[in-house]
């Protein structure tokens, strides 16, 4: 492993050095003395960040990418063999059996389709609500943001108590007052994922609310005044002024929430365990890599997942790109 890391480091240093040298040589060739100095200074100042990015971002990504083509088994770290595309063949073979992997993809898609509109919609509503300069708007802002700073593990535990299956569970106690029978919310395949979607949207929307709020603060007030003079009602003002003004903020939020949703792991892991009706792709990947110890296969799943998320993100950017 050390040998491999050193080889990658040498290659990276060579690539980085080559890039710097080329840049400097170009500047010299063009006799841009001022640029030679500033370029050298810029690269030197960039060096600590590049070193950290190499260590903590690029190196793990490269390793994961490389392992995707090996048979790396966690208990045999000294015996890693290059197996070309076997992990990807295994992935599609397992997918065709419609087993846990199939369910993991299905559940992840269900979660994404459920949580993205819900979380963004909630965030926008809350942002519009607290953006009014009414009484207590600051308190509401703090309240809505509070779940974001609570650890996801704690949130999952709290919701597990709320959704506890017995008659003493909080939600079951409430529905019990209306004569309804207790329900096992997290074990019933019909209600488990919706519960996780609601919890996740509740937990995460405070953060997007703040981003929407900053987007709202950038919309000029005179646009609303002009719209009011033109006789626009609340909806027309929202659609023609607020929404247009929030468009770039919305695209950013859409992409980040989508990526976050695709990576869901903690909630099903802590609330239900590795069950077919709640297992997600990240959880499947974690289980394959750590519990079943197939690091190579797990890395292949990670690579496919990255390609999928990257592909969808590119499509999103293309659909929502600003007209020039």
């Amino acid at each position, binding site marked *: 492993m050390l040998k*491999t890391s050193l080889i990658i480091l040498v290659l990276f240093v060579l690539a980085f050095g080559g890039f710097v040298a080329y840049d400097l040589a170009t500047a010299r060739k063009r006799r841009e003395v001022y640029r030679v100095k500033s370029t050298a200074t810029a690269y030197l100042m960039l060096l600590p960040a590049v070193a950290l990015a190499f260590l903590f971002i690029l190196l793990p990504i*490269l390793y994961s990418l490389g392992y995707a083509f090996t048979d790396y088994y966690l*208990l045999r770290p000294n015996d*890693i063999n290059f197996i070309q595309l076997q992990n990807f063949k295994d992935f599609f073979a397992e997918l065709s*059996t419609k087993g846990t992997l199939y369910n993991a993809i299905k559940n992840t898609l269900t979660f994404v389709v459920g949580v993205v509109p819900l979380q963004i919609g909630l965030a926008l509503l809350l942002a519009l609500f607290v953006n009014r300069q009414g009484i207590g708007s600051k308190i509401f802002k703090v309240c809505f943001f509070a779940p974001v700073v609570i650890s996801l593990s704690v949130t999952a535990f709290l919701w597990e108590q709320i959704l506890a299956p017995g008659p003493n569970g909080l939600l079951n106690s409430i529905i019990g007052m209306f004569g309804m029978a207790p329900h096992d919310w997290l074990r019933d395949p019909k209600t488990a994922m919706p519960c996780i979607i609601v919890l996740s949207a509740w937990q995460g929307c405070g953060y997007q609310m703040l981003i929407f709020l900053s987007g709202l603060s950038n919309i000029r007030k005179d646009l609303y005044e002009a719209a009011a003079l033109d006789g626009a009602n609340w909806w027309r003002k929202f659609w023609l002024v607020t929404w247009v003004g929030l468009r770039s903020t919305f695209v950013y939020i859409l992409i980040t929430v989508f990526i976050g949703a695709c990576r869901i792991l903690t909630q099903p892991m802590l609330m239900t365990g590795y069950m077919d009706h709640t297992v997600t792709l990240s959880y499947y990947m974690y289980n394959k890599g750590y519990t079943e110890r197939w690091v190579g296969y797990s890395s292949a799943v990670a690579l496919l997942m990255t390609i999928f998320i990257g592909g969808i993100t590119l499509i999103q950017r293309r659909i929502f790109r600003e007209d020039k």
Partner: protein
Amino acid sequence: MKKLLASIIAFMLVVMTMFSIVACGGGGEGNGEKEVDKDGNTIVKIMFHVDKSSTEGQAYQKRIDAFNAAYKDKGIKAQAIFKARSAGASGYETELLNNQLEGTLADIITFDAPNTAAYAKSGLLYDISSLISAEEQNNFYSLNKYEGKLYGLPIQESSAGFYYNKKIFRDAGIDVSAYTADNPWTFEQFKDVCAKLKAHGVTAVDMRLDATKDETAPYLLYPFIYAAGGSFVSDDGYTATGYYNSTATAKGFQFIKDLISEGYTSYAIGATDFFTGRVGMYLSSGWTIPDLDNKYREYFASRDDWGLLPYPKDVVAASATGSWSYAITNNHHSDKTATVELLKWMASAESSKAITDATGMIPARRDAETNYAVGSPEYTLLKQLELSGKERPATVAYPTFSTTFNQIISALDNSDVASLLNSATNTLQTEMDRLKNLK
């Protein structure tokens, strides 16, 4: 877009090529160099899975100190390393693997018994068959074996049973005094007691059906399958088909399913329902004894208020066993004498007693001194271990077995047992085939 795609593909090809050339090289194996301190003593390192300040950790340290005092003149010195399982068993395993990768793995490690096959197959453990005499091996209730070879010696043992609330039983007119470890009750007698408890208006038994997020449910429930005459895998640990989905195995799971469908147990039983007098029986291991003795005095003032019943039998009697063990790693010294001395010391009857006195578990050895009163819960557990203790399936694919077992238990109430078992068998068999083909 095309440029971007071309760049990504080119980048991936470069990485693939690079890894095909260099990743396979890996790191070096442990060098097996003998480590000696400044006084010329051979250092033997032993790694424990608990915190040093815990009761168990202190017991280990005392035994290490005693070893160092006893072997002072023989030039051997033991050094304990404590790596608490703060992030769960997998966190400890990661630590083990990191050490293996760095070539700094301790000479002796502690490990969870179900990992024996996987660790042995991967070359992490050293074959100690020839180093431990047959007579010495016979002293242990169970041994950590893989493909007929001995790879580990248990630190302590465990057993489980049904804790019951004597007041509820008395009020319901139920007499279970005849059911002992020597004379376990049957599946039918178990159901009869459940029916009487249900008729009395209490939830009959907490079968721990909600404990499917970790190893708890597999550990507590697998004996029912053996008791029904079923099994999970072949003797070599590489075949699940025909075992995991056999009729006898299905019968064991069906028994648990019947308990749910007949309303004797459920997934909705709260964690403290038994301890607060709402449930008649509670399936758990020996670790519940201190809780009942100390924590719930309001409901269980003394041992007269609760008792422990063995696992029920069907075709045969079977009960849960298994705990952590010691093993010599393949990172051992070229001169094994010192390492084996420490292993024997830590697995001795004296150490076994000292450690189980601290943990409340059952000694791993038959010759370890115990002073359990006849009929006491501890006695029931020990006797049951002797008479019907059966280990969890020994397979390299144990993590997958555990996962599929949990999935079956979690879906028992709303699925057909046969289809659940077929699905689990396919998953486990695929994993076993994959591991078998691992070069």
